[in-house]
């Protein structure tokens, strides 16, 4: 493919993905804003793919240093971003169980609703 074609195809894919991104995040409950930000934070950790690609072809000292730093930062984004998100979401895990418990054993005089 010529550089023009590669660029045009890239722009095509970019526009479609932007559209999907807009559609995916409509009407999200407020309480999930933070986990969602954290989850997308993990996803852009995919720059690590780019970091690995340039690291593979680095061939001088400064290039090695830049590549190592890029891989390190990318890895931190991927791993840290995922673990932070998972920890946030872990907090929501017990909720359905808590709902059931609440429904089964209501406090004796809590009828004021």
């Amino acid at each position, binding site marked *: 493919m010529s550089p023009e074609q590669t660029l045009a195809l890239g722009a095509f894919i970019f526009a479609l993905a932007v559209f999907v991104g807009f559609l995916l995040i409509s009407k999200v409950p407020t309480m999930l804003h933070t986990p*969602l930000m954290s989850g997308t934070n*993990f996803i852009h950790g995919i720059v690590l793919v780019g970091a690995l690609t340039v690291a593979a072809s680095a061939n001088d000292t400064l290039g090695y240093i830049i590549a190592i730093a890029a891989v390190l*930062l990318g890895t931190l984004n991927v*791993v840290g971003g995922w673990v932070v998100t998972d920890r946030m979401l872990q*907090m929501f895990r017990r909720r359905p169980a808590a709902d059931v418990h609440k429904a089964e054993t209501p406090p004796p005089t*809590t009828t004021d609703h």
Partner: protein
Amino acid sequence: MQPSALTTLGYLVTAVAFMFGIQLLRSPATARQGNRIAAVGMLLVLGITAALIHNTGNWPLIIPPIVIGTAIGAVSARLVRMTAMPQMVALFNGMGGGSAALIAAQDFRTAVASGTAHPYITWAIMVSCFIGSLSIAGSMVAFAKLQELMPGRPLTYRLQSVVNGLLLLVIVAIGIYLIVVDQNLALFAVYIVLSLILGVLFVVPIGGADMPVIISLLNSFTGLAAASTGFVLSNDVLIVSGALVGASGTILTLAMSKAMNRSLFNVLFSGFGSSVESAGTAAGAEGGAIHPTTVEDLAPLLAFAQLVIFVPGYGMAVARAQHEVKDLADELEKRGVTVEYAIHPVAGRMPGHMNVLLAEANVPYPQLKEMDAVNGDFPRADVAVVIGANDVVNPAARTQTNSPIFGMPILNADEAKTVVVLKRSMATGFAGVDNPLFYKPNTLMLFGDARTSVAALVAEVKKQ
């Protein structure tokens, strides 16, 4: 490099996994699964990349940063307290931005050395370097502000917007020169340094209360940086994933500013808190004396109430008082008191912050009431217990047109028969605005660490 058909199919699976993952993240019941599906997509694309570069001799260079990054990332993200999560998101977001900038910088060096620095590629290099540098510098400032390594209040100076605007113009001019005229490496270094400086200047004037919005914005920036890295390397999966994050991050940013009833423009350029002094004076003039109270006086008030509404804020998060608050709620419910929790959309330092903390303490989900649902309950509440919240219950947002938070939707805690405010001191909230609620005749102040205070209340209520 033209990827094979199999590679492209693998990229497709990854892209779909990311989209599906985000889709599942929209509901609490499936969110964790969504994050796992996204992780599967990430592992797949990293595996494909490893296979593509397997015959390089550079593995001894690549393995150590991966091992070290994994160890530091996993351990720090595990050890950090839940209250510090916002700044961890900022930190890891900055790492991604920095990585994108470095990738583009290295590609520029290679392209210049081999004489292939064609505008079809260099435009993307410039975009990637600029946004990536902006993102890492801005994220570090956001991290420092939230970690209280530097003042959280807005740092403003004269002609701020003008200086930033001029700096942006200079950067754009240098970028165009580097693309069109001459691929000078020294000038390219200047370009990166100026982009970093702009990132710092961009976030420094923004106050702590607006940090969630800024982190979300920087998150979508890093997504765009990743997408432009995809253009640099002609890698479609980077373009798709980056665009996905850039777009969804933008929508999320707008949703967050909307929850605070402020436009994004307002957040970015108003220098939140710059009119604090006049507003503070107004509140002080109106305010009379405050009414300190004791645990012994409060306990019977709570134990014999019909309806008690807890209003948690960042102070509860800092004191890690959520378990004690749950204990207090349990004790009150045993005595027939109805307990609700009023959750302001931006209470704490991130939307959803309070939900996460209270869920950790096993507070039943139906008791967590969102602002619109709970505001009608306050007039019939006997006691509203404000635990380390400030700006989100400040009635000045309804009445004082000159207040910086005027127009922000608030929890109408002041409409409860009695308001109890648990607070460390009379300090102002993030917005730096005085709170007339504290001076109302039906407001009682209980000073001290929220966790200690609530624990003492639990013990005292048990005696009732």
